[in-house]
C-alpha cells in the first residue's frame, strides 16, 4: 500500500523537489543529495503516508528543512556577485548582442531575487516559478495563509522597487 502511494504521489514530484532544492542551494550535487535524502526520509516514514493530506507539501517541507540544514552546516553563502547567474539556461537567440543583453538582465534579476530574505525568496519562487497556490505554500512553509499573502505582496513590492532602482528592463 505505502509503496503504491510512494510510487504514485512522491516519485512523480521528484523533479519539483530537485528544482526547489537547487534553487535553495544553487548546487547540482547538493540538490541531488537533498532530493535523495528527502525521498529516503519519506520512504522511512511510510506509515505516515496514509495520514497525510498533502503529500507534495510534506515532501517540499522536508526538502526545505534539509536544504536549510545543509546551508547552515556548510556555511554556504548565496553569491551576491551574480556569478551563478551565468549558469542560467542559455537563451536561444541568434543575435549575440541580444543574447548578451538578455543574460545581463537575467543576472540582474537573479541578483535582486537572491538578495531577498529567505522567506520572501522562497515564497516568490514557490508561487511565481512553481505555480503553487497560497494554501500549498502555507502547507509547505507551515505558516498561515494570511502570512503567505502578506509576505508575497511585500516580496513583490521589494522586487519591483529594486527593478526600478537598478533600471532593469526586459529586452
Amino acid at each position, binding site marked *: 500500500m505505502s509503496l503504491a502511494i510512494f510510487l504514485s504521489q512522491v516519485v512523480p514530484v521528484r523533479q519539483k523537489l530537485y528544482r526547489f532544492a537547487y534553487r535553495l542551494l544553487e548546487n547540482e550535487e547538493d540538490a541531488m543529495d537533498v532530493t535523495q535524502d528527502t*525521498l529516503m526520509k519519506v520512504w522511512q516514514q511510510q506509515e505516515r503516508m496514509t495520514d497525510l493530506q498533502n503529500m507534495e507539501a510534506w515532501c517540499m517541507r522536508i526538502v526545505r528543512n534539509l536544504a536549510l540544514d545543509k546551508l547552515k552546516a556548510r556555511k554556504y553563502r548565496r553569491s551576491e556577485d551574480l556569478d551563478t547567474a551565468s549558469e542560467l539556461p542559455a537563451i536561444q537567440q541568434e543575435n549575440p548582442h541580444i543574447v548578451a543583453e538578455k543574460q545581463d538582465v*537575467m543576472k540582474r*534579476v537573479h541578483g535582486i531575487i537572491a538578495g531577498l530574505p529567505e522567506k520572501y525568496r522562497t515564497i516568490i519562487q514557490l508561487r511565481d516559478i512553481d505555480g503553487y497556490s497560497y494554501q500549498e505554500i502555507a502547507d509547505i512553509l507551515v505558516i498561515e495563509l494570511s502570512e503567505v499573502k502578506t509576505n508575497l505582496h511585500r516580496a513583490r*513590492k521589494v*522586487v519591483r522597487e529594486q527593478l526600478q532602482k537598478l533600471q*532593469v528592463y526586459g529586452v
Partner: protein
Amino acid sequence: MEFNKIRELVDRYWDGASTLEEEEELRSFFSMEHPHLPADLKEAQALFGYFAAEADIPMPVFPEIGTLTGQTPATGKTVVRTMVWHHWMKYAAVLLMAIGIGYGARQFTSRHDGVLAERSIAADTYNDPKEAFAATQKALALLSRNLNKGTAQVQKLSYFNEATDKIKAN
C-alpha cells in the same frame, strides 16, 4: 488593447492580488516576443523572463527507485556473501595470537623454574644448625682478621697525620 489588459493584470500582480490563472496568462504573454512593448511593462517582462528561465533548470538522471526503497530496513537486509578463504586474515590473527600466548607461557614456566631452583639452593645450604653455626663463626673470624689488618694500616696513617700537625704547629 491587449496591452491595457496586461497592464491591469500586472498591476494586480504587483499588488499580490492576482490569481494563478492570471499569473499564468502573464507568463504566457511574456514568453512571446513583443517588439512594441510599452515601457511600463518592461520591468515585468524582465521578471517573467527570469521566472521562465528558472523553471527550465536541466534535470539530472535520478537513480532507480528500487535502489532507494531497497536501502531501508523495511524491505529486508541485503545479504553479502563471502567465501571462507576471504577470512584468511582473521585466521592468521588468531594463529599469531595463539603462538604468542604459547611462547609467553613457555618463557614464564622456564623462568619460574629457574627462580625456584635458586631459592632452593639458598635455603638448603646446611641441614644441621650446628654445622651452620660453625660455618658462620668461621666466616666471621675471617672477616675479623681482615678488618684487623686494615686497622694496623690505618694506625700508621694516624702517626703520619700527627707528625704533619706538629710540623704545622712549629
